[in-house]
């Protein structure tokens, strides 16, 4: 039996705003919400005891599960900073260290949630990038002059107009190593992005968007969840194919479920849109016409300013006006966004706070990126090890120590809570 609380024992005690009609939101569109604070302490009809609920009356004092949860923006900054650091070097030892650092933090701190599994997908993608890059180098040759010939592939003679392209031919160790270093850099960047995805759900970032951009943000996130849902559908329909006695593997099996999968995905999108609309997505507040016009003027003017400023920066003679125009444009656009946010009545439920931990996490990433950027200028030989002649790359001490700073989040952030494992899908009741 399901040992649920019998309704009688809670009657009138746990219901939201028991017995107060005044606690309802808006009687009509645009009406202000009568603040129901007092209602929490007013007993409803049939209430036998004072409301024992922990949340009543106290606004935001409840500890949230994982209350110290770090702002998702901090995780993204940290991961992107590590990624930036990875673009500053081709030293395989440093890159390996960077990947190891991000992997350690991910294993230690990723939440137990479906989106946290995306890390594995990114690692696979990174490996694929490595393999493809090496294959291309092997087949198409490499501009790196090398003396250590590993193998000579039969070369396909190409006509004159395809000069500069080579198919087959000598494969040198130098060329392969160069390609490997280069690909490692991209792979490390991908893995860092994967770490950001695993540590902080991208849709949580939405909460930090300015109000005016929120709805666009939702559209983007919904589009992003399209792919995972599609994969789940493919799996379900392939299982169903097995029920029909058709082979459930192979390319043909995949192709034949294509149409039903797309149909299902589109249907789900429409259903989601309906559900979001029915729950008030896209409601707008009435704003005075003057504010609307000012918003439009500020946003448009700001964007024009940004364009003009960028142009000024890029052309030789615009060096004087470029920076101020750019800054003014950015400021105007930001003001426009802020003013545009008035049209959206949205509020935020428990917005993420940018606390000291978030500063530490973001700063640790930033330091890694900064040190590697400086080192790349000061000591290019160590960060871009040469391949001709072929030498083993050395680990530059200071940059490596700086990379280790990236481990900081694994120690300053709270551990994710464990789900009550070993429970079947049913709740622990």
């Amino acid at each position: 039996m399901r040992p649920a609380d019998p309704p009688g024992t809670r009657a009138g005690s746990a219901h939201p705003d028991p017995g107060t009609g005044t606690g309802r939101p808006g009687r009509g569109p645009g009406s202000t919400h009568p603040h129901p604070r007092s209602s929490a302490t007013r007993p409803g009809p049939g209430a036998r005891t004072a409301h024992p609920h922990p949340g009543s009356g106290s606004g935001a004092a409840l500890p949230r599960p994982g209350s110290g949860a770090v702002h998702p923006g901090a995780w993204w900054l940290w991961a992107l900073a590590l990624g930036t650091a990875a673009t500053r070097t081709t030293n395989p030892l440093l890159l390996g260290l960077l990947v190891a650092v991000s992997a350690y933090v991910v294993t230690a701190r990723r939440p137990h949630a479906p989106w946290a599994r995306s890390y594995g997908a990114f690692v696979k993608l990174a490996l694929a990038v490595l393999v493809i890059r090496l294959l291309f180098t092997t087949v198409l040759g490499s501009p790196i002059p090398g003396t250590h010939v590993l193998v000579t592939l039969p070369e396909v003679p190409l006509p004159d107009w395809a000069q500069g392209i080579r198919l087959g031919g000598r494969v040198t160790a130098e060329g392969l190593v160069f390609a490997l270093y280069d690909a490692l850099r991209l792979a490390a960047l991908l893995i860092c992005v994967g770490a950001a995805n695993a540590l902080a759900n991208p849709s949580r970032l939405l909460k930090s968007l300015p109000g005016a951009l929120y709805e666009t943000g939702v559209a983007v996130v919904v589009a992003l969840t399209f792919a995972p849902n599609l994969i789940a559908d493919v799996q379900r329909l392939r299982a169903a194919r097995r029920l029909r006695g058709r082979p459930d593997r192979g390319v043909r099996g995949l192709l034949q479920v294509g149409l039903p999968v797309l149909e299902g995905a589109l249907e789900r999108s429409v259903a989601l849109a309906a559900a979001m609309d029915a729950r008030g997505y896209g409601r707008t507040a009435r704003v005075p016409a003057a504010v609307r016009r000012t918003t439009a003027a500020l946003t448009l003017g700001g964007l024009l300013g940004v364009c003009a400023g960028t142009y000024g920066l890029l052309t030789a003679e615009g060096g004087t006006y470029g920076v101020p125009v750019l800054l003014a444009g950015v400021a105007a656009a930001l003001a426009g966004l802020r003013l545009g946010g008035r049209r959206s009545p949205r509020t935020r439920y428990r917005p993420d706070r940018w606390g000291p931990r978030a500063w530490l996490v973001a700063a640790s990433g930033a330091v890694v990126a900064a040190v590697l950027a400086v080192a790349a200028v000061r000591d290019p030989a160590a960060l871009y090890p040469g391949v001709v002649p072929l030498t083993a790359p050395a680990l530059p001490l200071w940059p490596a120590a700086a990379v280790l700073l990236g481990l900081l989040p694994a120690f300053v952030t709270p551990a994710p809570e464990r789900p009550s494992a070993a429970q079947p899908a049913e709740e622990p009741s």
Partner: protein
Amino acid sequence: MIRFENVSVTYDRAAEPAVAGVDFEVPEGELALLAGPSGVGKSTVLGAVGGLVPHFTGGTLRGRVTVAGRDTRTHKPRDLADVVGSVGQDPLAHFVTDTVEEELAYGMESLGLPPEVMRRRVEETLDLLGLAGLRGRPLATLSGGQRQRVAIGSVLTPHPRVLVLDEPTSALDPAAAEEVLAVLQRLVHDLGTTVLMAEHRLERVVQYADRVVLLPAPGAAPVLGAPAEVMALSPVCPPVVELGRLAGWSPLPLTVRDARRRAGPLRGRLAGLEPPARPAPRAALPAPPPVAPPRRRLRGRSAAPAAAPSPYAAEVRGLAVRRGRVQALRHVDLAVSPGETVALMGRNGAGKSTLLSALIGLVEPAAGTVRAGDAVPHRTAPRDLLRRVGLVPQEPRDLLYADTVAAECEAADRDAEAAPGTCRALLGELLPGVADDTHPRDLSEGQRLTLALSVVLAARPPLLLLDEPTRGLDYAAKARLSGILRGLAAEGHAIVLATHDVELAAELADRVVLLAEGEVIADGPAADVVTASPSFAPQVAKVLAPQTWLTVAQVRQALA
């Protein structure tokens, strides 16, 4: 609070209006039940309340629908979001965010409630619906009952004055359904919320309704009235009402309690009579052709070991299945003989579907053995397995790929290597009057289920598995399904059905197996198992206890 004024809805490219002449009013604080056979437009009426019909579905709405004084013609769904909360049939399609807590807050965020109000209401709703332990859980990991409760909670938090629910308990086990209904009851009583819901399982909800809006047939005007009056002439009614009609009680009882108080004379008439025994299976099915020698593969399924012929259609010994880190089944033993019908019951997430998946080889056992006739399901090629086991999944649509019924049937014959026309003939027998060129998507829930059943039966599998077959079926469709399944059992098919529907289990099953937390906790004759527990007992058994009658049909037969 909700007022329909002579409303009719015609969808684009439809000749007939989906609903016509709908004219009724639900006053504030009432729980109104929308009843009727499938396909009469219940969902259309519900959608019209929240403005989704016609703003989202297209089509033409004539007449006027007002909710709390707002005309849905001039108010889009988003402008009604603060007065109407609606939950559709599939809670998963309803979810916008990723975790329970965020989902509960979503509607309030859109309406712009102050943060401290949101905070308090989320906590209160978590308690109200018993979800406090799940607050941080990703929605994708919840069971069906949990999802339904989260979906209801997510529309409750903005405190809508009207709640619109489409089949809120159909996917739930009896205990979870009672929980959801208790919550609704409380909203109506304590908060004066107006509730309009459609539900096929009238036995669960009719006693809570203040009034019933009955849509008797497609396009027909609705009948309104107190539940007892409407049930007297309704084409759909719960067993307790049917028993009341049979015994000639007036006014009709709506609850088991009412019925029990009048059942004395009926019990007297039935004393000394025995529920009729089930006929033994007439014939054995022809044995399926032997498993073809497997093609040589680099990797993949190895050859099915030639198994000795088994007296059972399905045999499971010491089965354990893991799904991720969850132990979905542990040490399950089950044997099903040809001609036997077994009902698997248990709460949502107890492992019923996993057991069916194991029987058809969709999941590999972590320990123990599974046999379907002479084959080991997960090691047998789909083509061979088809003639041994057939599964009608929870969502029959998954089985259907073609764009017409005829093409679907032809494909089924090809898959099963049956004589051309086999599947179409079966379908004609089970579901007369379906045109060849109908798109499977346009069929009603019950028709689609029957089509999927015909597709599966084209291969004549001795073992037939059905996962939650009565979800979304009205009583007539359910009765037809029961007739079909009983006929198949008499031909010698072994049938295993996973269901929450106690009435169906009572009607069909020879044996009931109760699962909990992946283990078998009861296995015995249907009458014994279902009457042993109040949540699994069918209404007739509760009314006539201590006699062991399970269905109205049994009583009717005995009295005749």
